[in-house]
């Protein structure tokens, strides 16, 4: 049920629907995309980025919200932690329990390593479960890994690291089969062929889905497999600092129990960082599709330990976040809606961008339509958005298509009295993905020996803009590679004594740069959504959080 003024606009959308069913907008050339992005994409807004003042990427730009945390103070005082008391001693520590972490843990275990998986929330509470549309793999006869490569490079503005893209596209079909062998249920035709769809920036139909619960299906199975394999996992136990040895090799981590503040020292011969993204930093005030714990923790820890990061000046704003009702503001409206044929339409019922352009281009076009041209639709709460004309799908693909292909979307809007079979959805870009991350090589290794990274916290494979279906591919391709490589490394590694000297040096560096007093403690661990209550402390006292002890903010 929409308010009256929105219903009025919907009448205009309905009036143009017949004509639009015949109307295909042409795709923009690279030369046309560039000015659109420069003028309207959030990455290009001057003053929203800041140069990092310390660390391995000193001098490079990143959003201020992330810069604060990358330049942050440690949560622990190295002098107060007894590293002689080791709680867990094993071959491979995996930090993060989403798709990449669970995959790395399974592969490391299968490669013969002893494994501990530590995660901030529950095993499986990660962005993976929210991925709806599908997973790319070039396995149809008219497709090839070469086309997948070209699409991925083009989507990333040709900045992607070629070796990583090669690994991504060549492992993809194998990953699809591996997941099926584990028990993932792909959407298939009766003859066994995969039911595949197109996606923004993809030149072939290569999106493998499981209704619109693709990531949930993948995660349910992986989580079950971690349990079946008896892999030890600690929930509600995020890492607050990496441990290195005297040579600067990764040697474990310090974990904290989120509920009791108890610290745990883990010694490991190799560490896989799989902590996901940063949506909960609400960069530039955007709402986000990300899960509660997406706070860039892994980037912060790896950066402090000396790892190079890459492409952190670019974030992905998913073009279609929900705008109405406010209960689901910023939540994902899957790109599969556009893949199935729904167009983006302004207040007057007109198309303004070809709906299956890469995400950054579509997001910029929506922002231009709303902010630049004033052709958006305002909600009673003051948000603005454009229509995503879902009823077209059943007109193109036959009645029942929406219910069959998009049950999660039907359910999500249905809860608030909106039937997306009959009425369009109001959408606006929402913070979705960290395009860059800890720079990795094709085996998941980073610039710190013994430290591996996989999934959203890794960087390089997607260049400056990730395509649909390439992240749920990335987590398995690089989760498998990192898990295997970490297990192999652990066979040869002979780490020296555990040390937090890098944290001491980091704090000294912050003080020398004059930043220690003005930066928050990090990693953030969780965003603070609790409404501030009247506090007996003056503001100044609350801001200068004690860095000498664990302080869960």
């Amino acid at each position, binding site marked *: 049920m929409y308010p009256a003024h929105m219903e009025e606009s919907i009448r205009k959308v309905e009036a143009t629907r017949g004509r639009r069913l015949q109307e295909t907008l042409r*795709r923009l050339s*690279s030369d046309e995309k560039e000015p659109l992005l420069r003028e309207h994409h959030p990455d290009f807004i001057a003053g929203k980025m800041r140069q990092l003042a310390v660390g391995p990427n000193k001098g490079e730009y990143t959003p201020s919200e992330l810069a604060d945390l990358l330049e942050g103070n440690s949560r622990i005082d190295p002098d107060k932690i007894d590293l002689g008391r080791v709680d867990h001693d094993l071959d491979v520590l995996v930090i993060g329990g989403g798709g990449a972490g669970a995959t790395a843990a399974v592969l490391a275990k299968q490669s013969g390593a002893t494994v501990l998986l530590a995660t901030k*929330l529950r095993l*499986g*509470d990660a*962005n993976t*479960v*929210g991925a709806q549309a599908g997973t790319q*793999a*070039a*396995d*149809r*006869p*008219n497709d*090839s*890994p*070469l086309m997948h490569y*070209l699409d991925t*490079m*083009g989507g990333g503005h*040709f900045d992607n690291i*070629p070796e990583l893209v090669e690994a991504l596209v*060549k492992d993809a079909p194998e990953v*699809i*089969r591996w997941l*099926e*062998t*584990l*028990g993932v*249920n*792909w959407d*298939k035709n*009766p*003859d*066994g*062929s*995969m039911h595949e769809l*197109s996606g923004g920036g993809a*030149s*072939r139909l290569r999106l493998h889905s499981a*209704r619109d*619960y693709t990531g*949930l*299906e993948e995660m*349910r*199975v992986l989580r079950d497999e971690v*349990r*079946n394999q008896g892999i030890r996992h600690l929930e509600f136990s995020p890492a607050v600092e990496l441990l290195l040895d005297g040579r600067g090799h990764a040697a474990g981590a310090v974990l904290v129990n989120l*509920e009791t503040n108890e610290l745990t020292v883990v010694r490991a011969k190799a560490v896989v960082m799989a902590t996901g993204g940063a949506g909960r930093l609400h960069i530039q005030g955007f709402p986000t599709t990300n*899960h*509660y714990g997406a706070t860039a923790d892994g980037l912060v820890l790896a950066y402090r330990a000396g790892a190079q990061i890459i492409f952190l000046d670019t974030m992905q704003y998913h073009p279609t976040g929900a705008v109405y009702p*406010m*209960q689901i503001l910023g939540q994902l409206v899957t790109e599969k809606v556009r893949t199935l044929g729904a167009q983006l339409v302004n207040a007057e019922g007109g198309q303004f961008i070809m709906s299956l352009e890469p995400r950054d281009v579509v997001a910029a076009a929506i922002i231009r339509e709303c902010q630049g041209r004033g052709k958006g639709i305002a909600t009673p709460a003051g948000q603005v958005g454009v229509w995503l004309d879902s009823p077209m799908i059943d007109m193109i693909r036959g009645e029942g298509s929406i219910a069959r292909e998009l049950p*999660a979307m039907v*359910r999500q809007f249905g*809860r608030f009295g909106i039937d997306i079979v009959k009425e369009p959805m109001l959408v606006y870009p929402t913070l979705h993905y960290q395009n860059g991350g800890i720079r990795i090589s094709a085996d998941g290794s980073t610039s710190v020996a013994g430290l591996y990274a996989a999934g959203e916290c890794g960087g390089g494979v997607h260049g400056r803009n990730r395509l649909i279906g390439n992240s749920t591919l990335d987590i398995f391709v690089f989760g498998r590679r990192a898990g295997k490589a970490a297990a192999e490394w652990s066979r040869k590694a002979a780490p020296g004594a555990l040390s937090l000297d890098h944290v001491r040096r980091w704090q000294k560096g912050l003080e020398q740069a004059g930043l220690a007093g003005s930066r928050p403690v990090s990693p953030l661990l*969780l965003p603070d959504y*609790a*409404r501030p*209550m009247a506090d007996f402390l003056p503001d100044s006292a609350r801001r200068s959080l004690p860095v000498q002890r664990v302080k869960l903010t």
Partner: protein
Amino acid sequence: MVDVYVMGRHYRVPQGLTILTALEYCGYRVVRGCGCRAGFCGACATVYNFRNDAQLRYDLACQKTVEQDMYLVQIPFFPALKAIYDVDRLEPSGEQVLALYPDIVKCYGCNTCTKSCPQELETMWFMSDALRGDIRQVAVKSFDCVMCGLCAARCPQGLVPYNVALLCRRLYGHYLAPVSQHLEDRIAEIRAGKFDAEMDKLKKMGRGDLRRLYDQREIEPA
């Protein structure tokens, strides 16, 4: 404003909040009982009733809007049984499901599981499909399960429908789903190195040439 009761204590919160954001509005910092905040992860299983209506209701805290006189509480953890198995060494049969979850015969059809499902799945019906060994039907009917565990928390017989369904879906995917020949063919081609020479060319190609190739590529209609 709406009157709600968080674990018995009275608060007034603005209209239009979800149960989760209402808890946060009341100053509660949620650690357990919150995951994706979008209706997919099942972390925020919640029960509620009303001041003058004791009947328990069930939902996901991130998806349910608060209403006047709601009594709210989160279920941070429920100790549900999960069978441990090697998916490579199973039979896709009803006997197998029964061997791993023998208690499913104890279902007496009260339908509480169905009524407690925030996804509105036909939980009791897929449990009876499981009993009959119809693995495919369990997979189809349970597919939208977010594994919040409310069915297990409420089952008077201590059954775990969401884990039984997960087993059946894994059996279906591993053993019963028809084979995708084109996928097998492509994997074999990649292993045989069919694309390696062309891939090397693409990897070495300059940005300008790559961009030209990209702009000129033919796009299959969606």
